């Protein structure tokens, strides 16, 4: 699990890319080892997709180095492409080809032996719950099925590194479960998986996370490590009027942040004694009498907001 112990499969150093005056990716470093699911999380426009594209060898970096399985991606992108598989954010398969035709097309492009193509294709389709749909046009699949087909096509040549850019966006929960079941199995077989995601529950399942913000990796650690690194303690305030409660708490001394989480407010406070009592007092002063305050379990979303700064909400 620890990337530093073995030689990393993916090694990124000082990776940068500009679009005109916009710094899309700036001086990004990370290592990913085999058997890891490495999550790239961050708001839209933080540089996740650009990083993915540069790793996949489909976009040229301005500076920095990427090595995949010992191959320098900038120096020999075509060789690196044999070892990796990339699933773009936008569905990249042919909608006017059937499920089987798409799979065979990608198998041929990666020179997968014919018998392996048939066997592995059938096995992956079964795992994705797509068996029986072999002759359906890809364009007539549901969103979830399309993404699973994308994964099947990406895996037909047994890559060392799998790059997934928001693969489960717009995918139903059942398909997402199938998707993750396949990912866990891949991880066991030593595939190195990099995944950009906007879902916090998915981030939680990754072995390590890189928090992207404005083109930079601000924090990179295991989900547990990130939670431990979160400054302050977390309390949950439950009330019938969470919005009013949040407004009453937000400016208080010792409150580092207040985040609306459905019917409760997650409040991050500093380490000083008696903060709960102060909160309750402030709430009562604001006319909120039904509030209860108790310690909360830290979620990745709390960490995310705490580490990247609260904006908007």
């Amino acid at each position, binding site marked *: 699990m620890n990337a530093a112990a073995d030689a990393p499969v993916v090694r990124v150093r000082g990776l940068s890319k500009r679009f005109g005056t916009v710094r899309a990716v700036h001086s990004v470093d990370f290592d990913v080892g085999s058997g890891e699911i490495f999550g790239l999380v961050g708001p839209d426009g933080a540089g996740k997709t650009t990083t993915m594209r540069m790793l996949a060898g*489909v976009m040229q970096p301005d500076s920095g180095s990427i090595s995949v399985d010992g191959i320098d991606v900038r120096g020999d*992108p075509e060789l690196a492409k044999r070892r*990796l598989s990339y699933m*773009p954010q936008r569905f990249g398969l042919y909608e*006017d*080809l059937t499920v089987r035709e798409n799979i065979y097309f990608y198998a041929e*492009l990666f020179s997968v032996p014919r018998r392996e193509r048939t066997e592995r294709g059938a096995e992956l389709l079964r795992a994705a719950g797509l068996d029986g749909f072999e002759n359906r046009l890809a364009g007539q699949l549901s969103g979830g099925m399309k993404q699973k087909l994308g994964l099947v096509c990406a895996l037909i040549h047994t890559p060392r590194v799998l790059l997934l850019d928001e693969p489960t966006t717009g995918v139903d929960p059942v398909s997402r479960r199938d998707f993750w079941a396949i990912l866990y199995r891949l991880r066991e077989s030593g595939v190195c998986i990099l995944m950009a995601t906007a879902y916090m529950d998915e981030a939680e399942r990754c072995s390590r996370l890189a928090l992207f913000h404005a083109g930079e990796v601000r924090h990179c650690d295991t989900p547990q490590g990130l939670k431990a690194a979160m400054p302050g303690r977390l309390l949950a305030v439950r009330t019938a009027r969470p919005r009013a409660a949040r407004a009453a708490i937000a400016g208080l001394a010792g409150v580092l942040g207040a985040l609306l989480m459905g019917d409760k407010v997650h409040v991050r406070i500093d380490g000083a004694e008696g903060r709960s009592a102060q909160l309750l007092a402030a709430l009562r002063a604001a006319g909120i009498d039904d509030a209860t305050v108790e310690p909360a379990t830290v979620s990745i979303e709390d960490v995310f907001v705490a580490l990247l700064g609260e904006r908007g909400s």
Partner: protein
Amino acid sequence: MNLRRLSAMVYKEGLQILRDPRSLAIALVMPLMQMALLGYGVSLDIKHVPICVYDQEMSQLSRSITQRFDAAGWFSTVRTLGSQSELSRAMDGGTCIAAVVVPVDFSRRLAATGSAPLQAVFDATDVNTSNIAQGYLLGVLADVNARIAADYRDAHGLRSASLGQVDLQASTWFNETLDSRNFIIPGVVAVILALIGAQLTSLTVSREWERGTMEQLISTPVTALEVMLGKLIPYFAVGMVDAGVCLALAVYWFDVPFRGALSTLAVATALFSLVILGIGYLISVRFRSQLAASQIALLVTLMPTTLLSGYTFPIDQMPRPIQLATLVVYPRYFITILRGIFLKGSTLADLWQPMLGLVAFAAAIVWLAAIAFRKWLD
């Protein structure tokens, strides 16, 4: 280059052509439509030019002359006029393209002086038609003059040999019936290939960029050369089938003589298809939007093919600078070859110059196409 990857690309592209009703329609229906449209619609011959006759004299002689216009089949008298103002109205209203006026003293002057004027008025809004009509009219009058001379000789008991006379015996080669269709239709094959070939290939690469399939494709080990050949081979097959259909229609439907060797034609058609498909592909690689690509493709293939290749307007009659410019208008070579093979039965040896031109263009375009595709997102 890897043959498995190449055949996978060709197979995939072929399936996409077969499943896209729009490409199929362009590939199969368009040549038929174009052939019918250009084969029937475009003709540089003028038959039954509508004329009006204003016979002021109404003598036996004047009537025998005016009847001759109709007899030749080139003109048809749509109306006989009774006044000058009627003539103006007929010309203004477009009733006729030409009007012939026989003066009131025509026969008298002819008898007295041995010559008499006839007036002919032409509507020259369409210069081409009016020129041709003028030519026809002079032909008819030459015939009339010959008849008058013959009558005179007969009346005076002279033998024709005693009068010095040059007799032109014209014989037309290669297009004996002087049918402009025989001249136009071989060129239609070039126009159809230019239209269809570039239209189809100009969309193939830009479509993949627009639909997002290119991002995944370029993340695989497929090479630029494999992408190019994979795209061009299926459309090359389509182009050759279309050319075959056009050829069959030309020969069996429009009865255009085919005097050369099919193999020579096949070689020339293959070279021209390569140029056209290569241009379409280059445009498609350059412009990542389908609309822009297809517009540009029309501009650089169809325009030169129809206007500057000698297909409609003879190159020797163009101004000198434009004649020189046509040397880079690649369709001119193919049109020259087509007409040579169809009408003259020219062989490869006769056609080595335009063939060399096509080979040079095909080589240059394919080379450019091979290096144009870059496996990178912008």
